[in-house]
């Protein structure tokens, strides 16, 4: 049963997508068969090739939230590879096209790797710089690129010698690439990109390698730029540096924003409009600068008034309507099977310290969390609780000490590897991916590398697991609603569901009761009991003494970064040091 379900789903998906391929085939036949005059043919060819480049932006900007202001440079790589390859080097068109994509991907990946660890501002400026450098080289390295004169008489493949057949070939490429980009958000890497866009920190602690995801997005974008450039060069048989300038990068960006950055359909709409409108308004081109000035104004206005573009505007209304009528599937009860290597202790922290300059936020702390129990870490404000949690989940690097999770040393791992090793956590200030539905958020948790509860991790298994987790916290019937429509307390439950779906070995809860009203606190307490009943070990940090004393069997108390008490709950709470830390000494 379990083995056949994914196959069936895949087949269903294929059947659902048949209309797309039929439509694409009709378009290809039309492109090949209709007798366009040269002017129309050129416009169609330009729209088709540019759309492929704009697809790239919909991946990097729309899906992953990273900016690329050098798409024209990557477009240029592909164009010059085909241009120089088929003329000066006499290499087959196909090889040149491939090489152009390859060069663009490598350049994109390198550029990304040097910058993507840093904030988005750097990326914007570095891609602009890169764009300028590429233009400089295209103009000045005359020996290789022919300089400002450009490259002419560029070849096409034997099979598509006529412009008409070449257009049909480009339309086919557009359809295939469009299909892949359209379905990218539903793949593992696509979901990772969306998570990174919405909240990098939360993506990291949910097992996503943020940096690598960004580099992938950037490389895919650059590769599509290269592919588009290669197609463009073959179509127009002539390329020159001004076609790949910074201004063109801005044109690509405007196309992407206008149509809607989130979807390839938006890319095609935006590209089509921005190629057609200037043709209708040709008089604008007679004054140099005027039409680019209008593009600039467009960018500001779109960002201000239609941030999701034309297509986003159309689909947003539709999505709202669909979420209301689409009943989520029923789910089986959630099973938690925490991994184990058999030891008594799930978490062993020894001599852990975290210093910020001279401040010893956490100083030589030992914590041992017994398997299957609820362990609480408490302390007054500023005692180092949250710092400890951040060091445990890898957001901060420990100054010294060691952290063993279920027999694995995780002291020096980045957050996503710790998650893979079996750590799940929630945040004091909720960090959900706000542009996604509850179900999609929890699916990202379920996708944790090493999650044995989802089999091979097929889309069906992930959805099922996510539904189980949402149902477990009592929100299964609202799975398809956007995060923004949930109350604060419910968002907290979704965060817990996201951690549970990953079937962690240890669950870290950072002040789960903060900001909840008394009914919600009772519900939370119930939930914790049900989680603990399944044998999942919990490390909880909270101020709420009622919750802590009732839920936890074992308590560790911190004050001024040091451990001041540790042991069985009731005994610890009666400890004189603990009482004076909380109530002040007499």
């Amino acid at each position, binding site marked *: 049963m379990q083995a056949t379900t994914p196959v069936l789903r895949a087949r269903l998906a294929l059947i659902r997508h048949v209309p797309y391929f039929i439509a694409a085939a009709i378009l290809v036949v039309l492109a090949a068969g209709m007798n366009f005059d040269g002017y129309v043919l050129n416009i169609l060819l330009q729209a088709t090739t540019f759309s492929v480049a704009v697809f790239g932006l919909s991946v990097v900007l729309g899906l992953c*939230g990273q*900016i690329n*202001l050098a798409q024209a440079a990557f477009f240029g790589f592909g164009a010059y590879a085909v241009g120089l390859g088929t003329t000066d080097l006499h290499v087959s068109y196909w090889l040149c096209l491939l090489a152009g994509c390859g060069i663009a991907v490598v350049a994109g990946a390198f550029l990304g790797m*040097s*910058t993507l*660890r*840093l*904030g*988005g*501002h*750097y990326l*914007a*400026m*570095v891609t*602009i*710089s*890169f764009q*300028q*450098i590429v233009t*400089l080289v295209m103009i*000045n390295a005359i020996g290789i690129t022919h300089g400002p004169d450009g490259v002419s008489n560029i070849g096409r493949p034997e099979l598509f010698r006529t412009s008409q057949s070449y257009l049909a070939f480009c339309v086919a490429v557009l359809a295939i690439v469009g299909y892949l980009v359209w379905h990218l958000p539903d793949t593992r890497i696509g979901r990772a990109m969306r998570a990174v866009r919405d909240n*990098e*920190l939360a993506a990291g602690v949910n097992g996503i390698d943020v940096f690598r995801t960004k580099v992938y997005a950037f490389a895919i974008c650059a590769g599509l730029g290269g592919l588009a450039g290669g197609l463009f060069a073959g179509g127009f048989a002539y390329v020159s540096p001004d076609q790949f300038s*910074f*201004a063109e990068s*801005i044109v690509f*960006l405007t196309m992407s*924003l206008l149509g809607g950055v989130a979807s390839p359909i938006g890319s095609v709409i935006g590209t089509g409009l921005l190629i057609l409108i200037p043709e209708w308004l040709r008089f604008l081109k007679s*004054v*140099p*600068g*005027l039409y*680019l*000035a209008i*593009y*600039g*104004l*467009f*960018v*500001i206005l779109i*960002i*201000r008034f239609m*941030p999701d573009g034309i297509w986003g505007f159309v689909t947003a209304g539709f999505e709202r309507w669909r979420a209301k009528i689409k009943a989520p599937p029923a789910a089986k009860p959630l099973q938690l099977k925490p991994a184990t290597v058999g030891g008594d202790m799930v978490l062993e922290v020894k001599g852990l310290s975290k210093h910020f300059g001279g401040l010893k936020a956490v100083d030589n702390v030992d914590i041992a969390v017994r398997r299957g129990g609820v362990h609480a870490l408490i302390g007054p404000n500023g005692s180092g609780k*949250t710092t400890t*949690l*951040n060091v445990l*989940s890898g*957001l*901060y690097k420990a100054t010294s000490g060691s952290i063993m999770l279920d027999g694995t040393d995780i002291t020096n791992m980045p957050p996503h590897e710790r998650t893979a090793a079996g750590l799940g956590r929630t*945040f*004091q200030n909720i960090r959900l991916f706000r542009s996604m539905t509850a179900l999609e958020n929890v699916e990202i948790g379920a996708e944790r590398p090493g999650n044995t509860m989802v089999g091979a991790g097929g889309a069906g298994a992930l959805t099922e697991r996510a539904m189980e987790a949402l149902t477990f916290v009592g929100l299964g019937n609202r799975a398809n609603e956007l995060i923004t429509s949930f109350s604060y307390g419910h968002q907290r439950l979704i965060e817990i569901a996201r951690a549970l779906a990953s079937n962690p070995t240890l669950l870290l809860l*950072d002040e789960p009761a903060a900001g909840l009203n008394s009914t919600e606190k009772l519900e939370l307490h119930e939930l914790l009991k049900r989680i603990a009943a399944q044998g999942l070990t919990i490390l909880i940090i909270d101020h709420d003494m009622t919750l802590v004393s009732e839920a936890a069997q074992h308590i560790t108390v911190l004050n001024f970064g040091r451990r001041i008490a540790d042991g069985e709950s009731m005994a610890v709470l009666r400890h004189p040091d603990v009482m004076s830390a909380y109530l002040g000494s007499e």
Partner: protein
Amino acid sequence: MDLVLQLLFTGIGIGAVYALVALGFVLIFRATNVVNFAQGEFSMVAAYLMVVFSVDLGWPYWLSFLIALAGMALLGVIFNLGVYYPLRHRSYLPVIIATIGASILLANSVLAIYGPQPQVLQGWFDTPGIQLGPVYLDSQYLLIIAVTIALVIFNYWFFEHTLLGKKLQATSQDKEMASLLGISVTSMIMITFIYSAVLGGLAGILVAPVLFVSIQMGSTIALKAFAATIIGGFGDVAGAIIGGLALGVIETFGAAYVSVPYKDGFAFLVLIAFLIFRPQGIFGERVAEKA
């Protein structure tokens, strides 16, 4: 040796311009957490305003200068109201894209009005320069360096020793707290935009006689200035100035000893090197988001 001294002087002169624009970058970044990609266009627009009033209309240089700076202040107001303010509650990405749109709009509007031919603007002084031993000191470069030094001192005094400066600092560090203390955050941000537009404009007017006045001068200067802020340490005032000077010197030597056509590429190479090996810059500290 003489050549080295000469190049050093020129490099510091051009670096001072980068430093001024970088300062504008940093001020806006600290106040709004946004990098203003139209900062370079402020310089370009101011230079064209000088051309309009001083060359085309033939008004006195000092009067044109004052009008141009007043025009920049106005541009700062319009920019804030039209580009930053409506997007202030959105994430940084839409704001970045909007400032890029503004930069394209400004550059190409000037192009549409004035055409692509570069314009020439006279320097402030009639004497072209003085010979000091082996080094020829161009009067315009001397002016640039003097103004930069004066502005750095003014900046220090303004932010550290005036109430308005302290309010601006408070705003840039914690907007919510500042507003709870009765500081009008909106007007502080407005002042920041005006100040940095004027700074950018000043840099443009100063450098115009050395370069040609052209549409591209804005983006070229902005690129270098941004590189300067990264080299110095992002968001750091002293870093922006040191970074700007360093970049000017590196670029001048690179043009003299390596290659002239690729002169504008050196900034990029230095930038990439810093991003890989010392992304926090010379003065900066690594900052991590709090969980």
